[in-house]
């Protein structure tokens, strides 16, 4: 069983929901990403989602676009991200790490080379925003060869008959995009989210995590009542950017991220029995 599947199973046995914080690797600085990952785990993160910086992050809202731009300005590419995971693994062999990004950096490295390098570094799963099931066959061959999970998005616009096509290719968990739009936008409609999760559960046994639009403990709690996990990205990246902006430096950025994750963890756990 993969580290991701194992973590969801363990949480389910405990009656708890997964908290999946997302940060852009190398934002705000190369040297804080690995220490930040450890601190997020201590603050209650169950799975770490690392954004792979890309020059054209088409699905990101303004907050994460800036995160990608800052990381790129720091010179961070996919190879550095793999180095970070390798370093993280020296102290943490249990927490699943998922990479989220866009097709081109993985294409450019080559699917087989990526799969080999990523599994060796300790990466557990990959989510490429712009590789839908129609385009994934060759990539999935390589990920399956090395035993890496491929996480797919399901959107509010995904028709029921299409969900099955997605879940047939997916492993680890399903990432439900809670709104039509880019990351960090809009307001959550929990009833709508619940309806779509029910549709997804009609097609597969995989856990369902929800992201795009979860900002704080209250929205995380609301989503956790209907999902198996909660992804928090833009709010976290914004909190770090604000701390840096306020002159607090990288230590303050990490503190801000830890504070938000701690608060969200408490919100999610308040629904547990």
């Amino acid at each position: 069983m993969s580290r991701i599947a194992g973590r969801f199973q363990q949480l389910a046995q405990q009656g708890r929901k997964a908290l999946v914080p997302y940060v852009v690797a190398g934002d705000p600085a190369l040297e804080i990403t690995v220490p930040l990952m450890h601190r997020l785990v201590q603050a209650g993160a169950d799975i770490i989602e690392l954004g792979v910086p890309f020059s054209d992050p088409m699905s990101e809202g303004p907050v994460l676009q800036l995160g990608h731009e800052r990381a790129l300005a720091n010179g961070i590419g996919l190879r550095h991200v793999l180095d970070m995971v390798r370093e993280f693994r020296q102290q943490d062999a249990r927490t699943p790490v998922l990479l989220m990004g866009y097709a081109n950096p993985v294409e450019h490295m080559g699917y087989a080379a990526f799969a080999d390098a990523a599994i060796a570094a300790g990466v557990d799963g990959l989510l490429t925003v712009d590789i839908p099931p129609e385009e994934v066959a060759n990539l999935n061959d390589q990920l399956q060869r090395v035993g890496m999970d491929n996480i797919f998005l399901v959107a509010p616009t995904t028709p029921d008959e299409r969900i099955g096509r997605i879940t047939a290719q997916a492993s680890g968990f399903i990432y439900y995009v809670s709104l039509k739009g880019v990351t960090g936008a809009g307001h959550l409609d929990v009833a709508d989210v619940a309806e779509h999760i029910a549709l997804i559960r009609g097609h597969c046994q995989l856990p369902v995590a929800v992201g795009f639009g979860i900002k704080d403990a209250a929205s995380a709690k609301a989503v956790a009542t209907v999902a198996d996990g909660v992804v928090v990205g833009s709010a976290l990246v914004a909190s770090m950017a604000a701390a840096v902006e306020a002159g607090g430096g990288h230590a303050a950025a990490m503190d801000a991220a830890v504070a938000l994750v701690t608060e969200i963890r408490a919100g999610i756990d308040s629904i547990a029995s």
Partner: protein
Amino acid sequence: MTSDLKADVFAAVPDADGRFGIYGGKFVAETLMAALSELEAVYRKLSVDPEFQRELDEDLAQYVGRPSPLYEAKRWSRSIGGARIFLKREDLNHTGAHKVNNTVGQALLAKHMGKPRVTAETGAGQHGVATATIAARLGLQCQVFMGEEDVRRQALNVYRMKLLGAEVVPVTSGSRTLKDAMNEAMRDWVTNVDNTFYIIGTVAGPHPYPLLVRDFQCVIGREARRQALEQTGKLPDALVACVGGGSNAIGLFHPFLRDEGVAMYGVEAGGHGIASNQHAAPLTAGSPGVLHGNRTYLMQDADGQIMHTHSVSAGLDYPGVGPEHAWLKDLGRVNYVVATDDEALRAFHTLTRVEGIMPALESSHALAHAEKLAAQMTPDQVIVVNLSGRGDKDIHTVAQIDGIEF
């Protein structure tokens, strides 16, 4: 390979998945997949619907002003002393460029799909103007995304769009040019997918856009083929068109692909020269990758990040290219070459002075290559150059380079 087999090769792309060999496809976020499927289904139905075709043909004739002339540039040809050069006068279309052939078609699709709002990206502003124009005519709400850098260099077109009732949104992310405008237009489409039709301006993007934009632009090549036969009694020996995303080039080339004797030249923006790394020539100096919904040749660095491009012409300043061009390059059917900023500027001045036709800086790249080509050919040979747009929009850029202030 027999001619029949070759013909089949060109008819077979894109396949049902939108692929041109290994290029093309649908590399977009899940949120857009249903919208693309819907567009594909609607287009498949309407493209064979005689009533839709009649509506489109009427718009092209009455509103765009087609057919556009195939003009023999006699004085210019004589001055070069080689082949006869004919210009396909897309600059004479309503709004001044080939872009309107496509926006008229896509706006009709939007109308049939009941979408009240259209969104578009633009580089030089020609596609933005063509979109704003057809939106005004059909009473559609229109938002155009344009890189901040292009807003500066194409101020005239920005004002034209505003006069037409469109909202122009300057894009400040990334390199602040066409690629970033395209990112932002796709973000807008993801957010407003229920009520919005995204009018892509070139033969790139996810399937079915490269197919439908090609179909709408093929009117250029169909007319040119007929006109060349009427005016010269034979097919042209060579076709030349500039390639940014590649819509005017595909429009000219596609109806001639099966004509083995017709050589084709796609001219990319050489900027300050390929060696300078400051250019926009992915087919000449790039490698395959995935951007903006399709697999194609890209300008990218060792990490797979998309590189900043440079061209004197905003409309060619793009790091990717339509997937069918990528396929045609690998197939060897089209020769892809470059013209530098300086060569394009010289051609701009030459055509203006010798023929009294002021070409767009984009089209000037094609003219620059045609001049080189013509010199190596004979007076019984014929070159057709796609004069894809008029140069009025570039007067400020040219004046600035010549050190003139208004």
